[in-house]
């Protein structure tokens, strides 16, 4: 199978025009010693029909996260309206290039401008970029901005920030960019730290990885009083329907993951990171920015702007090496939020909170289980288990339930902790099912057969 349109006659014509007898002659500049001279060892080619059958078989070996899923931990299953895929599968969005030629890309550009606007309005910030790889790298980008802005070297990062995000940050800063220090948790929430004069940024996540709602105002104030930037990460923008906009309580940079508003779980990607800032940090922003302008006839239009920050102009002096945005994912988010509006987003948030509140109370009544923290939460909470959570999860998976996320690997102090998430898609019956299976599993010793 291939998608080549050239007939034998086309090929002969092209070779004649080029003036070579065969296509192999076009590769004459490659030293013979380097040429492969054999077939690649790849699986045999498949027809479209056979390919779909093969992929269908692979897909069927995965258990879908449905209503019986209580997994969150940075990837959230919310309702996605049909129209999102209708729009993102349109050829003109799907197969368009980066909008460098503005006159041929007004659709993409305006959609990004609308995305930027929505992110600003959700977060309460002045400016937002066209999106970055994911929530984890968005936090890293925010920290790199803070390091450059303050010319300081230390970063205080809450232990409540997503473990993957903290790991990405360490990877990036290990190359000599700065020092990461962890802010401990108390009762599942970030202690307000002493911020020294060498601190560039204080990074917290709201709600944090354990589902707890942080004291945003106190943490931001602690950062700003010491001349550091307050970085607030948000891993589920749905929460911003009910939780205060970080811009309103003093955040300098707000960043995070927008997957929960419009994208399927997708085994973790592609997702879409967002990054928003105060106006005075604009010129330190990485990635693409779309601005409003006009043409010679006074017609309104949109274009990529402030490109002097970017790698294709500045090379090694660029504010970042980023050369893309998650265009189609950002489009999905924009369509989704446009369909929901403030009312729909609030309903999504309230539904998630209600399900989680119910599950929290119900699961804590299962004999042997208890809540790890008494503090307020949004749609996730930590359940302490009488048996190793990893074992319980395997047992639940055999019964078709994805019971949550075992915290022991990332939080040894919570080795008995199971992070449970509910959204507006969770029903009472699903929670009851989980409660009953947990009860059964701890009564009978778990046999892991998988």
């Amino acid at each position: 199978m291939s998608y080549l349109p050239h007939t034998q006659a086309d090929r002969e014509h092209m070779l004649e025009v080029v003036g070579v007898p065969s296509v192999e002659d076009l590769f004459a500049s490659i030293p013979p010693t380097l040429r492969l001279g054999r077939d690649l060892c790849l699986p045999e080619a498949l027809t479209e029909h056979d390919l779909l059958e093969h992929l269908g078989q692979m897909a069927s070996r995965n258990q879908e996260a449905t209503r019986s899923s209580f997994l969150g931990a940075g990837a959230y299953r919310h309702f996605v309206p049909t129209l999102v895929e209708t729009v993102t599968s349109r050829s003109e969005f799907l197969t368009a290039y980066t909008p460098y030629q503005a006159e041929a890309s007004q659709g993409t550009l305006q959609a990004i401008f609308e995305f930027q606007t929505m992110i600003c309005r959700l977060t309460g910030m002045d400016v937002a970029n066209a999106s970055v790889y994911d929530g984890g790298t968005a936090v890293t980008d925010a920290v790199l901005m803070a390091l450059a802005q303050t010319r300081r070297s230390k970063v205080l990062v809450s232990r409540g920030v997503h473990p993957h995000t903290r790991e990405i940050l360490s990877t990036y800063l290990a190359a000599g960019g700065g020092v990461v220090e962890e802010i401990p948790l108390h009762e599942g929430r970030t202690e307000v730290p002493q911020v020294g004069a060498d601190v560039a940024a204080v990074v917290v996540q709201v709600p944090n990885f354990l589902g707890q709602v942080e004291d945003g105002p106190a943490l931001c104030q602690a950062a700003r009083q010491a001349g550091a930037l307050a970085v607030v990460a948000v891993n589920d923008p749905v929460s911003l329907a009910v939780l205060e906009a970080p811009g309103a309580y003093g955040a300098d940079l707000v960043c995070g993951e927008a997957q929960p508003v419009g994208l399927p779980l997708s085994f973790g990607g592609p997702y879409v990171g967002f990054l928003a800032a105060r106006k005075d940090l604009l010129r330190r922003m990485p990635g693409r920015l779309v601005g409003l302008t006009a043409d010679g006839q006074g017609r309104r239009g949109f274009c990529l702007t402030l490109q002097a920050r970017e790698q294709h102009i500045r090379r090694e002096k660029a504010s970042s090496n980023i050369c893309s945005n998650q265009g189609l994912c950002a489009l999905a988010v924009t369509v989704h939020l446009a369909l929901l509006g403030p009312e729909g987003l609030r309903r999504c948030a309230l539904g998630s909170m209600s399900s989680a509140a119910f599950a929290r109370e119900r699961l804590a009544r299962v004999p042997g289980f208890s809540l790890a923290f008494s503090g307020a939460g949004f749609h996730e909470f930590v359940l302490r288990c009488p048996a190793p959570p990893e074992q319980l999860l395997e047992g639940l998976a055999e019964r078709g339930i994805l019971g949550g996320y075992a915290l022991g690997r990332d939080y040894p102090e919570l080795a008995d902790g199971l992070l449970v998430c509910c959204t507006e898609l969770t029903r009472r019956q699903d929670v009851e099912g989980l409660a009953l299976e947990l009860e059964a599993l701890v009564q009978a010793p778990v046999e892991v057969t998988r």
Partner: protein
Amino acid sequence: MKTCESTLFEKSRPGRRGTMPPETDCPKVQPEELLPAAMLRQAPPTLPELSELDVLRHFTRLSQLNFSVDTHFYPLGSCTMKYNPRVNEKAATLPGFSAIHPLQPESTAQGALALMHSLQDCLAEITGMEAITLQPSAGAHGEITALFMISRYFQDKGEKRTRVLVPDSSHGTNPASAALAGFEVVTIPSNAQGGVDLEALRAHLDSSVACLMLTNPSTLGLFETGIEEIASLVHEAGGLLYYDGANMNALMGLVRPGDMGFDLVHLNLHKTFSTPHGGGGPGAGPVGARGELVHYLPGPRVVRDGEIFRTEAPRKSIGRVRTFWGNFLVAVRAYAYIRTHGSQGLREVSQAAVLAANYMRVRLQGHFDLPYQGTCMHEFVLSARNLKAARGVRATDVAKRLLDFGFHAPTIYFPLIVEEALMIEPTETESLETMDAFIEAMRTLAEEDPQTLHDAPQTRPVGRLDETQAARKPVLAWPE
């Protein structure tokens, strides 16, 4: 001001509703009952309020303002805008791939892990590397990943190597990534044939050089014929050789980076392996490594234990560069593409891409200046410098006029070493008729009255936009 399409915010009407999410049957709670007062949202976010038809019509109309591969020819050099097969899209929407959670037990995602493992193997074979990570989300992300690996590798060896060499024809991401990874960037000039100037390379190679980043074929579309010597020089100096895989579409099944002496590779799945560009992303930039460097790849990667697939971090891993496993659904599409072609199919793709580029080069070189002569690989670079000198017509004028002829512009003003550059890459999926029509448009505009070119485009929803104004007084969000 005249507008082609009002923004969502202008169309919004208080109280209008689109789609509503489902209601849970759990007892309702109110935020005030559960959240601390200081954290309660005071005013709801001012998202637009629209009906479902409003939203659909808005975005459908916006889409119609775009060029795309499905509607127009994109001869964009270095971007490989080939056809994006629809069966790959179908594959990515299979619920067994799109509706699985990245943190569910590995025993419940064996199909996904098997696919990733198989793709890792395929990419390793295509590049001649020993191991691949699928984590990086884009080419530039792959570059920085590899540079972090290089940095840690030399740190472990106790060698202080602070400099990264890049040719002056390199992609801007190369020096930007090297700087971000903490290296000092040294630019190596090109020789008269467009290759790496070996004398200049020798002069800069010493024990402070960590690596040379190279694109081959180069951004001029020329195969770096001195690659064997370059590789020995870099290795003799104790440095590493990094392959920017942006131009891999020229070489599949013909030459492998590993066999050329490269130690690390990134690929762009959204170029060579046909995953759609999506107006700027998502893409994917897997990184391959060999030898000792394999142990430094970001973790976790997928490994095979008999019949079971699981994930683990390499022994000396630099750690994660992104959350979860990378852009999985992009990997699904690339895997589908590779499985559609097989070994022979991929080789034919590269051969056809190179033949198409040479055909266009030969038919255009009499009409435009071709600074670097000779057989090209999958792309070539023309210059509008003669047009500029004779008639004041610049590369940007050519680009804008092409839009009027119904073609996307080539890549312009890159590589930087070619004045008024027009970088053209037809890819293998364009027909002879399409290429001929483009060639005809280029020949026609080269003879047109300069004012027509300066005034172009005339047929688009907007004319040339005032970018200076956009940057001077940035309006990046619709005012509340």
